[in-house]
């Protein structure tokens, strides 16, 4: 556990050292703030004290930002060879993967915490459904965690960051919309399978304010599979060299 935390801390530090963290925070808060308060169907236009727009925008901005965070995690280590230095320290492959996963997740959580003033401001403006807001945040965290684990996996299989980024978006796209679209065009069993696979189905069900164990299991499973595949991909060096 201690080893994981050391890696998480180091990765988080390097996000802030390399400006990635600041760019991501400013862009995320800027985008979501702009649409929540100033443009389109913003809070004032709708006249409703809720964060619907914020969640809808965050759902997409995080989808694009997360692969940008994860793309360098292992791809750069593969490219520069630092992976060898890291893995010959007293850490297991699993600890490295989880440590990196947590550092990205923490950065996303920091971004979400910094968006809390939106929540408090809207709260001041009128009656707000608190449980819906907290569930919305939980949904965003779970969704980001899923894409982080996918992003770390794609980063682990290549030494090219752009490939890692695009591949993460490509795989993410299936969970984000394609499975959902498919579930609508099929009926019966097939449709249900696609609907179950679709991340948006589970995300929506959580943001509606109901935390169902079925949804939690779905997210945790996808996260776990992503991390497991990353670990397998790192330890592949033992076989192929």
């Amino acid at each position, binding site marked *: 556990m201690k*080893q994981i935390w*050391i*890696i998480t801390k*180091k990765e988080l*530090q*390097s996000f802030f*050292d*390399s400006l990635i963290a600041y760019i991501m925070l400013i862009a995320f808060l800027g985008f979501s703030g702009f649409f929540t308060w100033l443009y389109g169907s913003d809070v004032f236009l709708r006249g409703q004290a809720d964060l619907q727009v914020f969640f809808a925008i965050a759902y997409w901005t995080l989808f694009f930002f997360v692969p940008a965070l994860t793309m360098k995690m292992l791809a750069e280590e593969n490219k*520069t*060879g*630092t*992976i*060898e*230095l890291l*893995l*010959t*320290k*007293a*850490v*297991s492959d699993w600890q490295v993967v989880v440590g990196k996963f947590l550092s990205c997740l923490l950065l996303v959580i920091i971004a979400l915490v910094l968006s809390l003033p939106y929540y408090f401001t809207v709260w001041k403006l009128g009656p707000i459904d608190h449980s819906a807001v907290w569930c919305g945040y939980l949904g965003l965290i779970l969704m980001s965690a899923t894409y982080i684990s996918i992003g770390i996996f794609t980063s682990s299989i290549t030494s090219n960051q752009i490939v890692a980024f695009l591949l993460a978006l490509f795989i993410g796209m299936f969970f984000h919309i394609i499975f959902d679209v498919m579930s609508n065009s099929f009926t019966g069993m097939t449709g249900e399978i696609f609907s179950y696979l679709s991340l948006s189905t589970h995300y929506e069900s959580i943001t509606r304010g109901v935390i169902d164990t079925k949804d939690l299991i779905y997210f945790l499973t996808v996260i776990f599979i992503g991390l497991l595949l990353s670990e397998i991909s790192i330890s592949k*060096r*033992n*076989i*192929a*060299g």
Partner: protein
Amino acid sequence: MDILVESLSKKYGAQRAVDNISFQIKRGEIIGFLGPNGAGKTTTMKIITCFMAPTEGDVKIGDHSIRENPERVKQLIGYLPEHNPLYLDMPVIDYLKFVAQLQGVKKNMVEQRIREMVAKCGLNAEKHKKIGELSKGFRQRVGLAQAMIHNPEILILDEPTTGLDPNQIVEIRNLIRELGKEKTVILSTHILPEVEATCTRIMIINKGKIVADGSSATLRKQAQGQEILKVKIEDESDRNLIYASLRSIDTVSLVDFLSANENVFEVQSKPGLSSRRNIFEMCIKNKWVLTELSGIETRLEDIFRNLTMN
């Protein structure tokens, strides 16, 4: 702590990079790994440091096996990989701290260990810079510092002196020798004089097999077999006369001119025999002045070439 390598093999596809090698290294030894490119030196090091799993065989560090307890093994080893990969965007101090924490240095000791390493590796002026801003020599020092930060029992250095200037090379060699007194050191290099200068034992690897193992003196003896002497005689104008007399000594098998105008000869004795006394007595008999009589040692380069060129 001892290192025990038991019938280790590593296959890349059909190619055997390391082919069933076994050896033991005792605490306090400094081992020089020699071998041509692609001989399996780096692969062996990567296996010992638990970066790669072997196809067959096992490595034991003390009582810990790389197969059963890799985390513990990694903690006992300080490793400087080939090409010295580092996080270029991290400041030196932060990087050393990160490694110290990962390697389980106690919290209250971290600062002290970093200070010691910075002083030992001469990084004081550069410690707040980012690693990417450092020159190659200083990066190499950072690589060494991170390998030694947790005071490991075993140091594995893959070409530790590449990119250093001659002064730094001497410093690093002294450092390695000093460390070698209480620790086990394995280093690989292409620079043969370096091995002679630092190592107590030399291991030559070729095509995944160990072809020679021993101190530089033992290796020489093995390679040489026969005594070779350099003889210089003054005050005699007839070179052929000297040549003939040398040839007539019954322990001598071969005589050769070494110089075009001086009376310098290379004299090879018959296997197992020495001609020193006979040459000396011959000179007395002929009243020649013998100004030089010294053994020519086989150079490590020659041994290396003989063993690895085939």
